[in-house]
């Protein structure tokens, strides 16, 4: 049976749009009518923020195969830029209206710095790039600690609680969608080719600098967005919220869920965030249990839950369903001896 690609596309698009809209309505309803308690709402928002962080880091560590360990540094920039804007930049009376602008500004700030971090990635790979990103994370933290204008080590506050469940939902969907689009484009194929064999990629005409620059800019943009949401959820940020431990948390979510997979990132971020909350009654012991879970996972599934595999709804029909591809032209088929 020959499946019609266009029908498949349309059918799937209708379902996806309906599902996403239903999700949004649910988020608005939960918030408006208080369908679940504030604690659960808070956890849901953390899940969303962590999904954004995980998907964006997976682009660099999973898809591109680099090892960036300073993702929290970008998050810090997004958090401080957006918080400064809503507290000091915009008229307080209308700060709710300016919130999306502030979050985007936070993302742009992080993206700008992401560009700077991309430059060493042109020349070094692997362990060396890991050290560069590690240093970057530490630099960001110490710089903030030493700027009195943003509270130095005491942190920064005064933000209104502008991050709501619907906002987190919108940003999560947007970041997953955009990063997924990027992966299934010529740049995304370039990213994968760099992971597989950088020299061969360059020799096959891939502009590896352009690809790396774009990947870092997009990744850090969304880390900044996550930071902006985080700042207006907690209403208090300090440099220690964005130290290496935070970066490690994001790394764990990436490798738990699976490298090179959007579905994996969502799974990893959700399960890690929820698990840590569920295990809260265990007190200190949960910090002993979690690493154990990770070790066991790495033994049985070294590439994470979804490593390099993808939930088919995230894959464009053109890339997933080989039957959707046109058959090669008759006149050229099997021409080679």
């Amino acid at each position, binding site marked *: 049976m020959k499946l019609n690609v266009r029908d498949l596309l349309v059918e799937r698009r209708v379902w996806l749009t309906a599902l996403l809209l239903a999700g949004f309505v649910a988020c608005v309803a939960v918030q408006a009518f208080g369908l679940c308690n504030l604690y659960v709402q808070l956890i849901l928002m953390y899940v969303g923020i962590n999904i954004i962080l995980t998907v964006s880091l997976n682009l660099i560590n999973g898809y591109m195969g680099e090892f960036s360990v300073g993702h929290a540094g970008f998050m810090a920039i997004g958090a401080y830029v957006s918080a400064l804007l809503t507290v000091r930049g915009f008229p307080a009376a209308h700060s709710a209206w300016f919130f999306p602008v502030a979050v985007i500004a936070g993302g742009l700030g992080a993206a700008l710095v992401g560009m700077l971090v991309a430059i060493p990635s042109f020349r070094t790979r692997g362990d060396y790039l890991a050290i560069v990103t590690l240093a970057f994370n530490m630099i960001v933290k110490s710089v903030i600690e030493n700027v009195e204008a943003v509270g130095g080590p005491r942190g920064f506050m005064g933000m209104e609680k502008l991050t709501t469940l619907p906002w987190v939902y919108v940003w999560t969907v947007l970041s997953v969608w*955009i990063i997924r*689009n*990027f992966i*299934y*484009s*010529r*740049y*995304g*194929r*370039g990213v*994968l*080719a760099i*992971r*597989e*064999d950088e*020299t*061969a*990629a*360059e*020799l*096959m*005409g*891939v*502009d*590896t*600098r352009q690809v790396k620059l*774009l990947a870092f800019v*997009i990744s850090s943009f969304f880390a900044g967005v996550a930071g902006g949401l985080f700042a207006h959820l907690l209403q208090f940020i300090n440099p220690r919220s964005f130290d290496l431990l935070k970066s490690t948390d994001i790394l764990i979510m990436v490798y738990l869920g699976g490298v090179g997979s959007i579905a994996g990132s969502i799974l990893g971020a959700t399960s890690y965030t929820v698990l840590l909350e569920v295990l809260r009654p265990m007190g200190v012991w949960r910090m002993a249990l979690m690493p154990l879970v990770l070790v066991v996972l790495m033994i049985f599934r070294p590439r994470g839950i979804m490593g*390099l595999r993808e939930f088919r709804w995230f894959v*464009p029909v*053109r890339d997933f369903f*080989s039957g959707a*591809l*046109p*058959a*090669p*032209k008759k006149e*050229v*088929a*099997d*021409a*080679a*001896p």
Partner: protein
Amino acid sequence: MPLLEAEHVTHRFGGLTAVADFNLRLESGELIGIIGPNGAGKTTLFNLITGVYRASEGSIRLNDRELVGRPPNRIAALGVSRTFQNIRLFKELTVLDNVRVARYGAVRYGPLQALTHAGGFSTEEDRIARDSLDLLGMFKLADYAAERAANLPYGLQRRLEIARALATNPKILLLDEPAAGMNHQEIEGLIELILWARDVFKLTIALIEHQMQLVMGICERIVVLDFGVTIAAGRPKEIQNDPKVLEAYLGEKVEV
């Protein structure tokens, strides 16, 4: 005017001169062989032409455009493509994606279209997919399009590597030991394939090879390297009887 012209190309790794004063004029449509013992600098030469290394001295020009100093992806865009001595496919990617990656330079959309999948993105992606599948079809690889490249048998991996190299629309194709690991019969097939590709894609080919069956069979001209120095150049017949070549391969003649 020659298609590719190398003049006084020299490359040093620290104190070691890997290629010394190499000169070559490659006319459009030619098929030449580069031979020499292991470590003679053959692959280094390919790396110099394709921009993996930057020549210490000398000039390499394609259609009078200087290649030395350009990054590999720019050189690929100008029309130089290659295969590798030990197959270097993108193993985890599908056969189709291996070819589509190499179409990177032929895609006409920017980052914004890529991030939104809008503004002509689909049309362009469909075009790339169709082009790439046609190419795979020509190479009898269309049935494997959705297969991971690593899952292909050795012979087909070699074939895919040539198809991928052609996806960049090259003028010059550099083949680095294409017959490595092949038996007599497979080499016959490879010879046919190379000659076919040259005609269909209007290629100029330079190949490195140890298999004399292949080199002597199809190359119109042969360049012999030893320790980075060009020790002989000419038609296959002339090369076979050149005393310097025999010496490089078999050692000096000793009076007993």
